[in-house]
């Protein structure tokens, strides 16, 4: 792929723009809360788009396109079975407690609802996870740019990290959220033409279906048996593991996304955020997965497109997205495509950095290192942590060179951290009897159980470093089952320990738990602003897509 000045022009204009947003927002930053939480000041259309953009990191775009080529339209399960229902759930049922508790972060909610040690455990695991996620994202980007453009790994990693640092340092969360909206639009406008061009070249959906095995063009038909579908998963693992534990764990408890909804101006806005976001989320498979499927179809026609091979043999699916761009985009649009890729990378990284600095400053520094300092001090710590987060991410990017399949590794991380946490939140928010000791031991044993499952089972030569008790048909099946076991362990242990310990008195649980919280009534608002009717529409659309691509 050869870039010309016109391509560099879009990249440079975009870089200048994101830093400009940071510069314009910086005057708003007076307190640590302005910097770290945006202090409930962001309009709901902006928080909604930021809610999905923060998740649309480079590894998501590259990984979803790769999975499209590898598994076909079944990859859309990540959206239609996984993300969207979970987004509806957090908006409908969980935001009243998150927003109502006035907690500044997810770990802080755990402190208010349970106790100090539960917060501490969650804050530490979350901080580690965000740094790793952003490092992996950076690694994916650096590697691709090295492969496709011949840019050096180090310089593309450092340049993109420096730009993210500038705008998050200047404008904090508000700047990150504002830029995420721009990044979202760029991702759509930069990738949609690729999907249109690749699919029409492959002869539309009809042509694709004619050229590929039927497993590639059906979401549900081949789920019945693990050996029949390319993901190697069976219905229970898929529906419970992905559709329930992993997706709900991610979208309902990951502070990275919850933080965006908490930045909304009102309770109603915070509930609308994930539900509004569900609408574009349903359509994302057509932008990110479809090009991958078209790529495989193009290979079986005499189009001249082939997926590059890996060194050790086999297709290098992670290169599908960029090689498609190189084949379909003329100079000019190519620059926009690369800018979109850069934008997706930055949205993912800034999302991680802004979540990391909040959790570190409030949940670790303010809680354990220096408690009653003036706010100016915490603002300063927040800014320093932003720099530290970026530097740590760069370190992780170099570490990540040891792992080859980015998507699988990320799933693995989520299986550990967020799967048990969702059990903690379900019990914490909807069962007043659950106690701090229960939550802490549940979370800890859930994490350990996940780790043990990985250590005792093998899939695609991964895991099994303790013993090989069970062989999974695929890494994905293994990940789903780790999540299920981790969640179940947390659920059971939390329940048992809670029954044996004393719960908090109800007077301390107001606005934290179902049953002792005044739920928001939005009966007076028009239907298109009420979470319930909107969620019903989302579900109807979801069912239609599942039937169409059955």
């Amino acid at each position, binding site marked *: 792929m050869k870039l010309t000045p*016109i391509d560099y*022009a*879009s990249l440079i*204009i*975009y870089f200048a*723009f994101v830093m*400009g*947003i940071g510069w*314009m*927002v910086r005057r708003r930053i007076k307190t640590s809360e302005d910097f770290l939480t945006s202090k409930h000041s962001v309009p709901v259309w*902006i928080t909604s788009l930021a809610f999905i953009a923060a998740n649309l990191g480079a590894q998501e775009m590259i990984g979803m396109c790769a999975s499209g080529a590898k598994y076909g339209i079944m990859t859309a399960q990540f959206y239609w079975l996984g993300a969207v229902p979970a987004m509806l759930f957090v908006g409908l049922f969980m935001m009243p407690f998150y927003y109502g508790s006035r907690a500044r972060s997810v770990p802080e909610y755990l402190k208010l609802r349970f106790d100090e040690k539960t917060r501490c455990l969650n804050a530490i695991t979350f901080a580690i996870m965000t740094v790793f996620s952003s490092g992996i994202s950076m690694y994916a980007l650096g590697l691709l740019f090295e492969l496709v453009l011949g840019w050096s790994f180090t310089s593309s990693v450092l340049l993109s990290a420096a730009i993210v640092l500038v705008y998050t340092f200047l404008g904090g969360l508000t700047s990150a959220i*504002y830029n995420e*909206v*721009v990044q979202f*639009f760029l991702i759509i*406008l930069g990738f949609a*033409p690729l999907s249109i*061009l690749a699919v*029409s*070249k492959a002869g539309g959906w009809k042509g694709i279906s004619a050229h590929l095995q039927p497993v590639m063009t059906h979401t549900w038909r081949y789920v019945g048996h693990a050996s029949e579908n390319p993901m190697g998963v069976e219905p229970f693992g898929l529906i419970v593991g992905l559709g329930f534990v992993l997706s709900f764990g991610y979208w309902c408890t990951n502070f990275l996304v919850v933080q965006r909804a908490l930045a909304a101006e009102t309770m109603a806005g915070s509930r609308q955020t994930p539900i509004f976001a569900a609408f574009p989320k349903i359509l994302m498979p057509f932008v990110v997965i479809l090009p991958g499927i078209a790529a495989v179809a193009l290979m079986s026609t005499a*189009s*001249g*497109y082939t997926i590059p091979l890996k060194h050790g043999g086999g297709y290098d699916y992670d290169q599908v997205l960029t090689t498609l761009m*190189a*084949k*379909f*985009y*003329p*100079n*000019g*649009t*190519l620059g*926009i495509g690369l*800018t979109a890729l850069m934008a997706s990378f930055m949205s993912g990284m800034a999302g991680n950095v802004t979540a990391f600095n909040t959790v570190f400053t409030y949940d670790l520094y303010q809680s354990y290192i220096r408690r009653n300092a003036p706010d100016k001090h915490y603002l300063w710590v927040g800014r320093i942590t932003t720099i530290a987060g970026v530097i740590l991410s760069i370190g992780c990017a170099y570490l990540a060179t040891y792992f080859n399949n980015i998507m699988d590794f990320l799933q693995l991380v989520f299986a550990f951290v967020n799967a048990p946490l969702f059990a903690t939140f379900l019990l914490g928010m909807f069962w007043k009897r659950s106690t701090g000791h229960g939550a802490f031991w549940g979370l800890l044993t859930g994490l350990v159980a996940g780790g043990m499952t990985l250590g005792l089972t093998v899939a695609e030569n991964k895991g099994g470093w303790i013993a090989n008790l069970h062989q999974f048909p695929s890494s994905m099946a293994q990940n789903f089952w780790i999540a299920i076991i981790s969640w179940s362990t947390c659920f059971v242990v939390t329940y048992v320990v809670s029954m044996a310990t004393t719960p908090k008195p109800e007077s301390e649980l107001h606005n934290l738990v179902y049953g002792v919280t005044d739920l928001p009534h939005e009966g007076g608002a028009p239907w298109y602003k009420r979470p319930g009717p909107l969620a019903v529409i989302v579900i109807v659309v979801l069912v239609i897509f599942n039937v169409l691509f059955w």
Partner: protein
Amino acid sequence: MNDLRRPTGILFAVLGLILVLYGLIHPGARAELDSGVNVNLWTGLTMLVFGGCLLWLSFRAKS
């Protein structure tokens, strides 16, 4: 900065305009897998219209 639509609109209008002009000046600029479409022109126009819409919304809200 009160209205994000304005700077965002400007960004997309500028990027779109550059692409449209480039597409008009070099109508023959094609990728390897050519579909017979001037991709730059159409992508540019889409971005320009999108940017224009954001600007229109932003100015309408002001007045």
